[in-house]
């Protein structure tokens, strides 16, 4: 019950401030306006278009990041030579605030879908990569020895010991990566988009429609929360065996 108190108080304050006219609607739309705007956007189909476009970009960018992170992370985690060759460069790239790549990406890929998906993928890649490499490095050598004693082949050692041992870390990385994907989506769509939730934000700003801006923010919150909840459920299901306090 306690966790509802602060949101309810905030909601009441929002309602009172806008209804009494203390805050003008061009500064902050009232809850009623926001609900009306949601219904209107849903009826015209714009809501689904923007929501769909954003989800598609996140899903595609995240999937690409996941594939790249799995390939590169396995290489770096599994081979000293690959680690020496790749990791310093990747760590240097990681040190660049990823949004600094935006101008270059726009120049190379234009303002189309490719640029947005690429930006999302860059954002999601690093948390997954870092988690996977540290997961592989952290595998208990003693468990690997057990596999060796039972005469497991290299591939069996990977599938039966290394993969399950690494999975919990990988899933945590994927969850953080998905959160990053949403973050980078906003950046991509704020810069150049004709649809998507980020577009809803800029459109609302340009037309001074605070109700539209609030709808976009609410939808971001819902999407972010849903993907986080989904990933946590996946962690519980696939890595419930870990003997640690859940993060």
């Amino acid at each position, binding site marked *: 019950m306690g966790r509802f108190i602060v949101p309810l108080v905030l909601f009441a304050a929002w309602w009172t401030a806008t209804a009494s006219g203390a805050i003008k609607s061009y500064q902050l739309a009232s809850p009623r306006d926001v609900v009306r705007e949601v219904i209107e956007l849903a009826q015209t189909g714009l809501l689904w278009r923007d929501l769909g476009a954003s989800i598609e970009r996140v899903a595609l960018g995240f999937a690409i990041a996941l594939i790249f992170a799995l390939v590169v992370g396995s290489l770096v985690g599994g081979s000293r030579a690959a680690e020496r060759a790749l990791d310093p460069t990747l760590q240097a790239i990681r040190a660049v605030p990823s949004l600094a790549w935006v101008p270059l990406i726009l120049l190379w890929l234009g303002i189309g879908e490719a640029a947005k998906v690429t930006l999302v993928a860059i954002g999601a890649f690093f948390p997954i990569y870092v988690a996977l490499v540290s997961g592989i490095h952290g595998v208990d050598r003693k468990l690997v*020895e*057990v596999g*060796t*004693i*039972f005469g497991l082949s290299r591939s069996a050692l990977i599938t039966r010991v290394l993969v399950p*041992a690494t*999975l919990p870390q990988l899933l945590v990385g994927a969850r953080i990566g998905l959160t990053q994907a949403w973050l980078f989506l906003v950046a991509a769509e704020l810069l150049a988009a004709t649809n998507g939730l980020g577009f809803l934000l800029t459109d609302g700003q340009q037309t001074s429609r605070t109700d539209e801006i609030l709808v976009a923010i609410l939808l971001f919150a819902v999407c972010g929360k849903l993907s986080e909840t989904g990933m946590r459920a996946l962690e519980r299901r696939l890595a419930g*065996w870990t*003997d640690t306090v859940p993060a």
Partner: protein
Amino acid sequence: MTSARIRGLRKAYGSQLVFDGLDLDVARGERVAVLGASGCGKSTLLRCVAGLERSDGGTISTTGEVGVMFQEPRLFPWLDVERNVAFPARDDTERGRIPNVLALVGLTHAARRLPKELSGGMAQRAALARALVRDPHLLLLDEPFAALDALRRIELRTALHEILKLTRASAILVTHDVDDALAIADRVIVLAGAPAEIAFSGTVGETAGRQAILDALGVHEPAGVRAAFRASS
């Protein structure tokens, strides 16, 4: 017929020579306890026989399956007890043995539990069941009781003794505890020196009594303590 035959074993870590020509035979069904001071090479010997360490010379040959049990259970935390025990099983015969070995170590009721839900003693018994599932001719036991409290220790020791008798498996037990050695082994050897050599070898109940082993280990109990011990046993 021997279960393990070690001839001229040489093993060095850098410039430090652990063994320089060690010979040891373990007869079929024989249980040999290896004692010695910390760092004398007991565990290294076992790891060489298990194939976890490459020797620098000499030959090690074993007959039949070899099962290994460590100081820690080393269960796979993502598998329940039954699946852990099933891990080494390669065919239906070995899989068919799973219920038996679970019963043997008294874990039938805990087959579905994850390692994190087991006590230390239960986890170690699960590890023993896993080591038994291929019906090994030789069990390599590296301080298997060291991490257990006194009661669990006696419990597992007794269970292991019964199981070894039942399966007629040979065993090499590395331990620092004379009582563990006397409870399990037919023969006790003491490793000493650098490079380590067999400083003492005796049959339990004949030449390898508690005092003889302690003497070989260079442990001197104060006379008063010795008298008290004699009086109580």
